[in-house]
């Protein structure tokens, strides 16, 4: 069982790494948000896999569902924000947002 747990956490760490790499290096706002989604996939995989390995899959499942609902709400708000930013700046380049500083 420990090997299985290692396998899932290994892959969830890889997903989190891909997301963090994209967040740190890319400039397109939509792509940055795709990175956030990838990180959230890694986290939900870790939650459910740990629950399954530790015989608490029902609890892990309910936590994963809560996490997905929060994620949807976050996505809707963030994409609305991105559309508003695009309307104002006519670009999705994250560097343009640095003009906001005082």
């Amino acid at each position, binding site marked *: 069982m420990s090997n299985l747990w290692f396998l899932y956490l290994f*892959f969830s760490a890889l997903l989190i790494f*891909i997301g963090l790499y994209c967040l740190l290096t890319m400039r397109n706002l939509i792509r940055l948000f795709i990175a956030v989604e990838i990180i959230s996939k890694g986290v939900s995989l870790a939650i459910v896999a740990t629950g399954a390995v530790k015989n608490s899959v029902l609890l892990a499942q309910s936590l994963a569902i809560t996490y997905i609902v929060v994620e*949807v709400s976050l996505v809707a708000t963030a994409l609305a924000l991105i559309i508003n930013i695009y309307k104002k700046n006519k670009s999705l380049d994250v560097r343009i947002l640095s003009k906001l500083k005082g």
Partner: protein
Amino acid sequence: MVIQIILLCGLVIFSGLAILLRDLIKAALSLAVASLFLGLIFFRLGAPYAGVFEISVVAGLITVLFALTIALTKKEDEVQENRLVKVIFPLFFILFLVIDGLVMKSLLTKVPALPSAPEGGSFGLVLWKQRTFDLVAQVGVIFAGVLAVLALFRKTGKDEEKDE
């Protein structure tokens, strides 16, 4: 075990494609395929409800939202990403793969995790009786999301003047 490894590899490959593909629509679609793989993994882990949520909500609804946003923000001059970023990604990825393989195994033995104990009852019982507060919080989060979207898309005085 082999099927699980195939599903996990598919998940990582399509997640990688989501950040490497140039076209944003293709990136969003590959994210949806990654969600599909994650849903199948949830099914195999004995978490069917989480799998259904993952496939229907994340692979379905969120992809539609992404596609809509990409369509609404399409423009000729795309954001130019640094080319070096995509070139050095495989190097960093392999480096992290090695570190992850070396560190994770020893980390699992050192970090105390949840105590392993069999749980009784059904999923409904756990969700409605044990995690009631989570459900209340979920309702709050959904309302907050709806209000935020309404606030972001409300018409201002300038917009009304433009319409006229």
